[in-house]
């Protein structure tokens, strides 16, 4: 018997449409793009954290056979029209618009010469021939003292402290005065970096008489690249054509154009030849962007029962020399989000951002996650100080359905559709909380050190302010009935070719294989993929476009079948009369009529099958999750082994559970790496000590445990009931892992407050303890 209802794809773990080309090596990443006459770019980069360029002679480099051009700052910097990115206000204090370092260098990795040659090999040979001398200057390396340093990272800004905000709250002061106890600790997060497996890269081709710049790039925001590129060159947006291919990961690194990308655009225009720059891994680790380096001093007041009464926060973050994207400073976002899933009471906060002579800060998966890192560690500290179990302390303070909707004192509004209490309970149940505590006690008696860590958080997803507010979907049923979907997204691992096709397939009554997603040139403006925004915002647009298209398809089919529109159903691309399956037309027949036999359309109907929709998203759609992991610490070696890892996630209705769990697991692995292994460390002179994968330790399959998933499903109020989930894993994992290690070390009487918890750190903590 044939099915009587249309197959439903949303909610199913549909296999990915991206995979056949990617598993066979037929993806098209930026380094796979080859243009006739294309030349290759390499940058000379500073080995000094801060210094003056006292002598620079490029003549020997320029004379090398195969070298086509050597550019210095005075060639490229004056060509820049504007470096503005849409997200940032035009007049925010920002570092000077130096594509190349001019007169002085400001961090190790600062590019000061660009060589263009017939091959990358020759370009790098030429860099060896540069005659350059520097006079070293005392660098600003320590961000804790940067604000008061006499040396200035950017003399143009006249300060190393370009960004500070203070929001005192008298109710907080009052609450502290009357509290049973106020507990204070400073939490430190260390310098990490995104590490997409594909580094940054761009191919730029200037068409002189047309005045068109054609670009292929590794990007997560093709339209923002188009706007930033056009602004850099001072050309019309329509003259900037951005092709979008496969992108090998980004995690926030590929939202904005970097200085090198812009230098390539300017140079390609000057030379009139296609240029390719593919960042190598050393460049990526030294100069793409760093992240996470920050500290937050937290004071929390509690009453006798462990109820949170108020909090005071002091956040300081390091933006390095040239933040990726322009003015940065998300410290205020971390403090604002700090209350998270708890009734925290009144909060006062201060957030400061400083410049140092180090690699610039950039967005990295949950760029504000210090709020969860600091809060969840702090809650465990409070629990330990007042002698309440950390799960119980969270249960006493967590937001419950009767608290919702909820407004925090920092101005956040949580919808009735969040469920932090449920994810907390679910994760605790999956891990077997009580049983673990018994096991842990027994293990301690035998001299084994097990620990458990909890992290509960609310993730602000699909934020809708300014340029982030909308996405567009242009949907076309082609003459043969296949559906082409053009969107402003920039899928780089998030599986949008599959998930957007699932949404369209269900709305339109076709199969996902009948839908092809096209991104980049030809699609309508959208901010791209990042900020956990595609399911809700792009998904909303795809749904709306498909829904509009369905009406037109039904109207044409009704006319062709001489039936009433209300009697029709669409299954697998066939439109038929309910109960009379022989009366049917295919999507291809409807499309052929719409395009090639338009006289047969209903009277007055516009020819063709094209529909465009734009979805405007609410200000924010919150998801929430709870991570609980267990670990064992070897006190002899300092090694931390993760035993189990549980994530209970509420991201509303899942479009594709396989994809959701993949996003969560990937984020968790990054968080584990951050907490235990990865460290983009500098010495006191500003020399980076992690410039290869031998020093910057990305976790492998041997370090990441199996991740167990629980799902609570409370649909959001957005179309389809989805919530974002892309960043959450990397938000929850660092504090969960940290708390687990701290718990394991508790018998030694030590209180770690710094990451990474690598073997050296663990051993020195144990040595400092008084067991």
């Amino acid at each position, binding site marked *: 018997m044939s099915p009587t209802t249309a197959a439903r794809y949303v909610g199913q*773990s549909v*296999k*990915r449409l*991206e*995979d*056949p080309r*990617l*598993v*066979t*090596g*037929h*993806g*098209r*990443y930026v*380094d*796979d793009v080859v243009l006739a006459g294309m030349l290759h770019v390499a940058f000379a980069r500073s080995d000094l954290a801060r210094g003056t360029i006292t002598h620079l002679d490029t003549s020997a480099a320029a004379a090398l056979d195969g070298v086509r051009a050597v550019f210095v700052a005075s060639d490229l910097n004056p060509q820049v029209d504007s470096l503005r990115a849409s997200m940032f206000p035009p007049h925010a204090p920002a570092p000077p618009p130096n594509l190349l370092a001019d007169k002085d260098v400001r961090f190790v990795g600062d590019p000061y010469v660009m060589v263009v040659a017939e091959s990358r*090999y020759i370009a790098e040979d030429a860099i060896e021939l540069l005659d350059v001398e520097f006079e070293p200057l005392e660098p600003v390396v320590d961000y804790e003292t940067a604000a008061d340093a006499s040396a200035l990272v950017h003399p143009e800004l006249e300060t190393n402290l370009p960004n500070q905000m203070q929001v005192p709250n008298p109710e907080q002061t009052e609450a502290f005065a009357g509290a049973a106890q106020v507990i204070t600790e400073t939490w430190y997060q260390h310098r990490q970096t995104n*590490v*997409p*497996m*594909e*580094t940054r890269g761009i191919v730029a081709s200037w068409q002189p008489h047309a005045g068109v710049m054609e670009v292929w790039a590794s990007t997560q925001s093709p339209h923002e690249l188009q706007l930033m590129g056009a602004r850099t060159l001072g050309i019309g947006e329509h003259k900037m054509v951005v092709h979008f291919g*496969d*992108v*090998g*990961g980004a*995690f926030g690194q590929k939202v904005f154009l970097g200085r090198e990308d812009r230098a390539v655009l300017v140079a390609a225009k000057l030379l009139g030849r296609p240029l390719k720059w593919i960042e*190598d*891994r050393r460049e990526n680790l030294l100069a793409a962007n760093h992240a996470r380096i920050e500290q937050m001093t937290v004071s929390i007041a509690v009453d006798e029962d462990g109820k949170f009464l108020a909090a005071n926060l002091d956040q300081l973050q390091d933006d390095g020399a040239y933040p990726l994207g322009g003015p940065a400073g998300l410290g205020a976002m971390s403090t604002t989000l700090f209350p998270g899933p708890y009734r925290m009471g009144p909060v006062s906060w201060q957030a400061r951002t400083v410049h140092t002579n180090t690699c610039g800060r950039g967005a990295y998966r949950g760029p504000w996650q210090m709020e969860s890192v600091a809060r969840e560690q702090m809650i465990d500290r409070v629990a330990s100080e007042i002698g309440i179990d950390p799960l119980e302390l969270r249960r006493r303070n967590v937001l419950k359905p009767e608290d919702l909707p909820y407004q925090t004192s920092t101005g956040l509004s949580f919808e009735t559709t969040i469920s932090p209490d449920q994810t907390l309970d679910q994760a605790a149940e999956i891990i077997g909380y009580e049983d673990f505590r018994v096991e842990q006690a027994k293990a301690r008696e035998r001299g084994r050190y097990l620990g458990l860590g909890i992290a509960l958080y609310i993730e602000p997803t699909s934020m809708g302010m300014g340029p982030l507010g909308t996405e567009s979907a242009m949907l076309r049923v082609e003459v043969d009935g296949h559906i082409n979907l053009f969107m402003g997204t920039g899928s*780089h*691992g*998030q*599986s949008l070719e599959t998930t957007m096709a699932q949404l369209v397939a269900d709305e339109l009554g076709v199969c996902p294989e009948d839908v092809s997603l096209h991104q980049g040139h030809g699609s309508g403006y959208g901010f791209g993929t990042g900020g956990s925004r595609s399911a809700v915002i792009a998904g909303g647009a795809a749904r709306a476009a498909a829904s509009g298209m369905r009406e037109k398809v039904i109207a044409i089919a009704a006319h062709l079948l001489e039936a009433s529109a209300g009697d029709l159903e669409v299954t697998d691309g066939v439109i038929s009369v309910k109960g009379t399956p022989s009366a049917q037309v295919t999507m291809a027949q409807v499309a052929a009529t719409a395009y090639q036999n338009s006289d047969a359309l209903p009277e007055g109907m516009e020819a063709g099958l094209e529909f465009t929709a734009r979805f405007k998203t609410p200000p924010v759609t919150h998801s929430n999750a709870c991570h609980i992991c267990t670990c064992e610490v070897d006190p002899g070696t300092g090694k931390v082994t993760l035993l189990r890892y549980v994530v209970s996630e509420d991201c509303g209705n899942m479009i594709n559970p*396989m*994809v959701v*769990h*993949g*996003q969560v*697991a*990937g*984020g*968790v*692995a*990054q968080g584990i790496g951050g907490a235990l292994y990865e460290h983009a460390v500098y010495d006191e002179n500003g020399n980076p000590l992690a410039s*290869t*994968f*031998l020093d910057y330790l*990305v976790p*492998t*399959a*041997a370090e*990441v445990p*199996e*991740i167990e998933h629980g799902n609570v499903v409370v649909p959001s109020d957005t179309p389809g009931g989805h919530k974002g989930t892309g960043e959450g*894993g990397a938000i929850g994992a660092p504090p969960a892992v940290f708390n687990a290690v701290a718990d394991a070390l508790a018998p030694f009487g030590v209180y770690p407050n710094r990451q990474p918890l690598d073997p050296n750190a663990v051993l020195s903590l144990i040595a400092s303890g008084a067991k």
Partner: protein
Amino acid sequence: MAEAVAISVKVNGRLQQGLVEPRLTLADFLREKALCTGVHLGCEHGVCGTCTILLDGQAVRSCLMFAVQANQAEVTTVEGLALNEDTLHPVQQAFSDCHGLQCGFCTPGFVISVAAFLEANPDPTDEEIRHGISGNLCRCTGYQGIVAATRQAAATMGGKSR
């Protein structure tokens, strides 16, 4: 500059001849001369495994070899694994079935490494899988789908499934 050297390498069953500089890496030779752009470069210092290929049946990192060292050798890249356009290699099929990839950039190296690993160890335990594939880095998946894919491929390729 050193004299170019004539080499001849069988790449995915097809003879690829050329004059190459001695310093040209095998990875660049495969990408630029043999047009096997499935050979990806993730670090160019031999850690990430993204450029892994089979050289006379052994998994090697093509960024750590010069093309001249592969003279007269047989190379298989990810493009040479699938039986035909309609039939994926069991490892490729398993990566797709088990969500063993997201952005796909590390995938060619992983697919080759897993194929070589299962050749040498057809019936691995989970722990052996995790250590066997720990020479390749993935930044997207957290390895969950990759471990599952290796398990599935082991079963379909004839090893006893555990």
